[in-house]
């Protein structure tokens, strides 16, 4: 089984159209959460979200044909993939099919555009025109779009496990590379804001009307976000041979279900403890080797303490020296794209020996006894890092990344 390296990263978030802008603003403790401009929020209970600037969706380096009728979500994915491929030094040659795989977490896909169609369809009946807005409803549409944009002919898989989707995608892609199913995989995901998720999370009262405060005793819920991340995965042998620079190694991943409730976590943390232990076991590392946890950290009242309870169970006394931060205070909760974005941030943290802060965190909660990295990023040597995602339906996943020796 081959060692798998991350050799390229592309990021599009509310903090920036690219990896370095996102990373530097994240380290400064900035937040991309602001009044939502994508659609009219009149009538919604809350009005904030971490929206990607429209300028990020203009993609001059991508053939116009590949972008025709592309949804907002697909454009996010294509932009992140373009940056990741360039970063990895894998040039895309026009007219050449590349045997590389695409493994994405799929979520809202083209739903934002389809909502417009549905609005008209509900009001005007079955003769409503314009089908193009409906073509990217399937959750794998953005995966297909990325493959089409870059002529990728390798295996294509779309995981849709809600908020853990792209965490699983990175783990699965690493497994496919490790076993030689594809020499290179573009792994991650994209998810765009839309009315359905905005209305739905508001109806669940899971959204804070103010900027989210993960692990803070004043927290009242999450802010939704959007974005995309693509990680280029390849075998260490292949990467070395072509002189590629690695960010981190993918050591393993764990995936479990808590079989508890569709939207509520098991407060004891026992279910998520199994996920983390499965990930560590798959990676062949012990709790004392972990130096950083990029937490799910949604900032909901129930989620954060349940998550920390799992870490207390797994890491025990070691937790006191582990930095635990959530980027959702800065980037919002990007749902099916979140795990990929957080895996990318974690890989950058490993490579640069810096941990990002938890934007919004200022007042510790005794129910969440972790070093949540307030304020700004800090230098932090990392041997092994964990990136956790917990999703609707109790579908949990954790990814273990390590420093390349």
């Amino acid at each position: 089984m081959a060692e798998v390296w991350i050799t390229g990263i592309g990021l599009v978030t509310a903090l920036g159209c690219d990896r370095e802008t996102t990373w530097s603003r994240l380290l400064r403790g900035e937040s991309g959460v602001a009044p939502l401009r994508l659609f009219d929020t009149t009538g919604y209970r809350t009005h904030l979200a971490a929206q990607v600037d429209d300028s990020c969706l203009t993609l001059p380096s991508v053939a116009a044909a590949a972008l025709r009728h592309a949804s907002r979500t697909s454009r996010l994915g294509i932009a992140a993939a373009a940056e990741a491929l360039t970063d990895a030094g894998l040039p895309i040659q026009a007219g050449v099919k590349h045997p590389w795989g695409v493994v994405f977490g799929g979520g809202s896909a083209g739903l934002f555009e389809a909502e417009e169609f549905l609005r008209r369809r509900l009001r005007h009946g079955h003769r409503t025109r314009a089908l193009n807005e409906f073509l990217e409803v399937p959750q794998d549409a953005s995966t297909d779009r990325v493959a089409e944009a870059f002529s990728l002919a390798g295996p294509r898989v779309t995981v849709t496990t809600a908020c853990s989707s792209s965490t699983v995608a990175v783990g699965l892609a690493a497994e496919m590379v490790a076993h030689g199913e594809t020499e290179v995989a573009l792994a991650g995901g994209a998810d765009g804001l839309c009315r359905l998720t905005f209305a739905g999370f508001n109806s669940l009262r899971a959204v804070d009307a103010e900027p989210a405060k993960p692990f803070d005793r004043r927290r009242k819920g999450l802010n939704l976000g959007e974005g995309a991340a693509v990680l280029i995965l390849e075998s260490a042998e292949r990467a070395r041979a072509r002189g590629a620079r690695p960010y981190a190694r993918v050591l393993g991943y764990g995936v479990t279900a808590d079989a508890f409730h569709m939207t509520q976590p098991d407060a004891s943390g026992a279910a998520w403890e199994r996920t983390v232990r499965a990930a560590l076991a798959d990676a062949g590392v012990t709790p004392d080797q972990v130096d950083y946890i990029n937490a799910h950290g949604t900032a909901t009242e129930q989620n954060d303490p349940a998550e920390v309870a799992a870490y207390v169970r797994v890491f025990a006394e070691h937790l006191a020296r582990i930095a635990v931060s959530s980027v959702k205070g800065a980037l919002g909760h990007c749902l099916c794209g979140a795990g990929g974005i957080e895996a990318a941030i974690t890989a950058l943290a490993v490579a640069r020996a810096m941990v990002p802060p938890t934007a919004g965190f200022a007042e510790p909660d005794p129910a969440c006894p972790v070093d949540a990295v307030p304020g700004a990023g800090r230098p932090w040597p990392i041997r092994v890092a964990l990136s956790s995602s917990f999703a609707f339906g109790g579908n949990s996943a954790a990814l273990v990344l390590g420093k390349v020796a």
Partner: protein
Amino acid sequence: MNGDVYVRAVGVVTAAGTGIPALASALARADWQATLSPERPDAPPLPVAVCRDFSTQGHLPPMVARRLDRPARLLAVAAREALGTVGEPFPWPRDEVGVTAGTANAGTEALVEVLKAVFLASPEEAPPMQFPSTVANAPASQLAILEKFGGPNLTFAEKQAGGLRAVVEAGRLLGRRRAAAVLACGVDEAQWLNAEAYHRLRFTRRSASGPGAILGEGAAVLLLSSSPGDAPLARLAGWGAAAVPTATHLYPSSGEPLARAIMLALEHSGAATRDVDLLLSLHSGAPRLARLETEALASALGQRRPAAMAVTDRLGEGAFSSALRALVAVLALGGAPIAWPPPPHLATLGFPGLSHPPRTALVTALAGGGSAVAAVLTAP
């Protein structure tokens, strides 16, 4: 493949009825056809093979059924049939039982209901009880909650190939020891907006006797394990997947990715083309798909002409249908009498109907967007 993977049990809900006996009865009748009857709120019906008489009564407690939407109910009932045949005590720790599911449209009805509230009433009227069902992984998650299965719970979106993707990914989970057993599933609901979209794309048939696909509704479940148990139904011998860049709503321009997936599956399973004695055709009634399958088989199987049969042109297209093809292959490997003939495009090429129990079955799927999956199942 890392270790053997066995099919230990199966369960199903289709337009032929609830349960394996209903499906087997339909498969034994050459003239069986589904009644097509999807309703739209304001327009003529569209061609979807609906599970018209489906009920959870006798399968799920009413209080449980009430909190599930239709795809979750279909899946739960099919899964209960499979689980009911493995006996007591339950052979695996429930924390080590996973679920993989492929779906093309689970969540659409809930999505429409939530957006109806948003658009026609007010965003504040969005129903919180229905919102969690809008995620495609809801049926698989509800199944895990219902049966207390704590293993990996993964849903895959790959349009028409989603169900077969779920089967092969279950094999991967077992091979990597991430689970002791996995319920590999396909599930779809008959949903008017989804059917309307396919109809507008001219994918579905426009008249009763005209060309084009019918869509399907149902759930197919294969319980897979790395241990054979006392009476395994079949072995998942290998699989392969390939893709070609294609617009997400179109089939690829050639059968090349399907051929590649078939060849990878044969290689992975250690089988030669001469070993294949049953082909579960992916024929849905769509002429383009028939042409692509013809091309792929010519490339992957050469002159080999195994027995062939189609189920998707009668029970409907969707993600669930590719899992259903794997399930029907398992029934055939077990000697179930099957009277459904090869599809016309394969009959013309000399592919015969099934006349005796096969030993090795090839199951394939090809999705809009250009991805293909193939699996080889063998008699135990």
